[in-house]
């Protein structure tokens, strides 16, 4: 199994990410206008936000843009944040709304000007690591919801219950989609390894 070679690098990647209490406190301080708190929240959640945006948009440049907008929106809305539920889910809801907004606008623009579909992002394919290959595969073979669910679980560290809430799915729906997606991914990667 090729996974074995990677275990050492993965030893310190614990699931769950920053604690909810920690994030809540940071959001509270951002609400008071503290730039340091924003910087700290950014460091702790950037990959979650970027990964989720990428899973919706399938385009790195767009995901970057949404990532930036998300943190600006967090900054602007922090003073109105109600400390209920998962703060990570709150941040990701903002990311989700912004990303979907972008998709809609892209549709309009495409309808109006007939802009060709954004070309698939192939930057740095040559230097692809195994991890990156898996990410690329996930972006390509998984369905919209599957991508988002897997990314939210793997990268953002959300629990299935929170994912279900965020995406408006039932818990069991989320779970079965998650398992199907990972199975699909395993199969695809297995095929690549042997083929």
């Amino acid at each position: 199994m090729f996974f074995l070679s990677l275990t050492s690098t993965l030893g310190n990647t614990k699931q769950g990410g920053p604690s909810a209490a920690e994030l809540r406190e940071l959001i509270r301080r951002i609400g008071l206008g503290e730039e340091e708190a924003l910087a700290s929240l950014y460091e702790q959640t950037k990959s979650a936000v970027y990964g989720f945006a990428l899973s919706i948009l399938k385009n790195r440049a767009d995901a970057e843009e949404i990532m930036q907008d998300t943190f600006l929106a967090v900054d602007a809305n922090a003073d109105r944040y109600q400390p209920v539920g998962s703060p990570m889910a709150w941040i990701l809801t903002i990311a989700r709304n912004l990303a979907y907004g972008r998709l809609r606008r892209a549709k309009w623009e495409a309808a109006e000007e007939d802009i060709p579909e954004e070309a698939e992002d192939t930057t740095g394919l040559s230097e692809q690591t195994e991890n990156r290959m898996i990410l690329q595969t996930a972006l390509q073979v998984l369905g919209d919801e599957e991508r988002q669910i897997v990314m939210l679980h793997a990268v953002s560290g959300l629990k299935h219950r929170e994912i279900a809430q965020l995406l408006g799915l039932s818990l069991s729906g989320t779970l079965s989609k998650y398992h199907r997606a990972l199975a699909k991914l395993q199969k695809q990667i297995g095929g690549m390894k042997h083929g």
Partner: protein
Amino acid sequence: MADSKRKLEQQLAQAVREETPDLLPQILSARQLQKGRIIDMTQELQKQKQKKNHVRNWAIAAAAALVLAVGGFAGYQYQFAVDTAVSIDVNPSIRLEVNRQEKILSANALNDDAEKILDGMELNGTNLKTAVNAIIGSMVQNGYLTNDSNSILLTVDNDDAAKREALQKELMADVNASLESLSMTGTVFSQSLSTNDQILALAKQYNISEGKASWIQALVTADSTLSADTLAELSINDLALLAEGRGLKNEVMGTADESGYIGAEKAEAIAIEKAGGGTLTSIELDLDDGIMVYEGELVKDGVEYDFDINAQTGEIIKWEAEKAEQDKTPSSSDIGLEKAKSLVLQKIPGATITEIKLDVDDGVRKYEGEAILNSVEYEFEIKASDGTFLKWEEEKKQSSAANTNTNNNNSNNNNTTAQPTTKPTTKPTTKPSSITMDDARNLVLNKVSGATITQLEVDYEDGRKVYEGEAYKGNIEYEFEIDASTGKFIKWEQDVMDDDDRDDKPADSSGLITEAKAREVVLNKLPGGTIVSIELDEDDGIYTYEGEVRKDGVEYEFTVNAKTGSIIEWERDD
């Protein structure tokens, strides 16, 4: 199997971490640009009132001009008289003239960009709100409003202060709702204004609205190195930035509204005088039955007073005393504020709770408040003793959908007969939708009664607004799309769920042990251990709690059957 899935996830996470860009510098420099979804200048002004005492001269001049305007219009109030002028500035500048019934008399493009926005729109005779919505929609569609450049200046010019405040507030809510429905985050600056000659001249000279002219004038007054020539070219977003960059935010953007309110401080003084002392706990400017009031709370000797004070006259309109201790002291039998909030969020995940407080009504303790999600406002009351909902109301914010119904009110309903000269409503090209989300839901339920709608959302297909979603009944799954303007089904697909999908039905998850119980099971097995992660999972129809537990530097992975509480898997991780 579960193990390799976990590894796969970790690799994915690693890949994303590796390629996450570093945008912090950009974010920190851009945060000046976005300081909030809405900045209601009227409210902003109240907050800043005590700090502000300079750069006011022009505002006083504006007040003088107001008197002249009243004189000019008095006694000339019928259908074709211009009652209010509303301008919308982004970079396109549009000026709308409106009669007393809030119908558009004329819509004028003040610059080339605006021409493009109004092209093909026939707004004369339409309801003001419908028109504003259509214009905002068109601005988004034409790329003038994006998440990078998202400031809108909404200016309401009317000689009646109360009316202009009310209209400003309504329009702002409306613009915000339409932005939200487009998933946009915008910054809406709104001001009510009575113009002076200087502003009018400036507006005329540069072909901009009075609203934008008022900003420019304030900027030039405050900083003589700026010239009106260059400023006139800038978008509202840029002007806002410029003002903020010079620390002029409040002066420039807040000065517009000066009309005769007594001010929060004065209102506070009135309230304290009435109560004979006490402490003010809240005060805000609000609109109540068309009257601007200072609404607030004051506590004295354990008694809480709710009051409304007329913002123009200082008259006390409402004065109610409540026993504060009965109200505010939480009782141990209450479920608690946090629990109440989470009950609401369970019903509408992702919503923002805008207000929640404990109240006592006829001896019943309850949490009452408001929440908002996707432009829909919810009002609720939750029994404090057991968490049951006493009230749950949805209220769609005024939007284009609601307005199409009210458009024709004044002209009866027989608009099928040709009335070429007084055609009441000419639909703009960006047609407002005519069915609501609730209508869409009913349409689906009419088709399959008893179905459960699992998903329903607004989407845009080729620029056309649609409701799309999913539903199921029994083992049949339905996907649908409904045209929001006609209520017609564009897509209706049904599919028999296969075995995989069948467990989408949430019924399966009943009778599970709680997470706390699962933790107990694990810690019984490994006394003194620390649970690193635990979560409910499902595989092949069996619910499990999966996770990791650590003791003395050794990690174990566990899987507990969530129905029976037995340990299915226990693996030492070396």
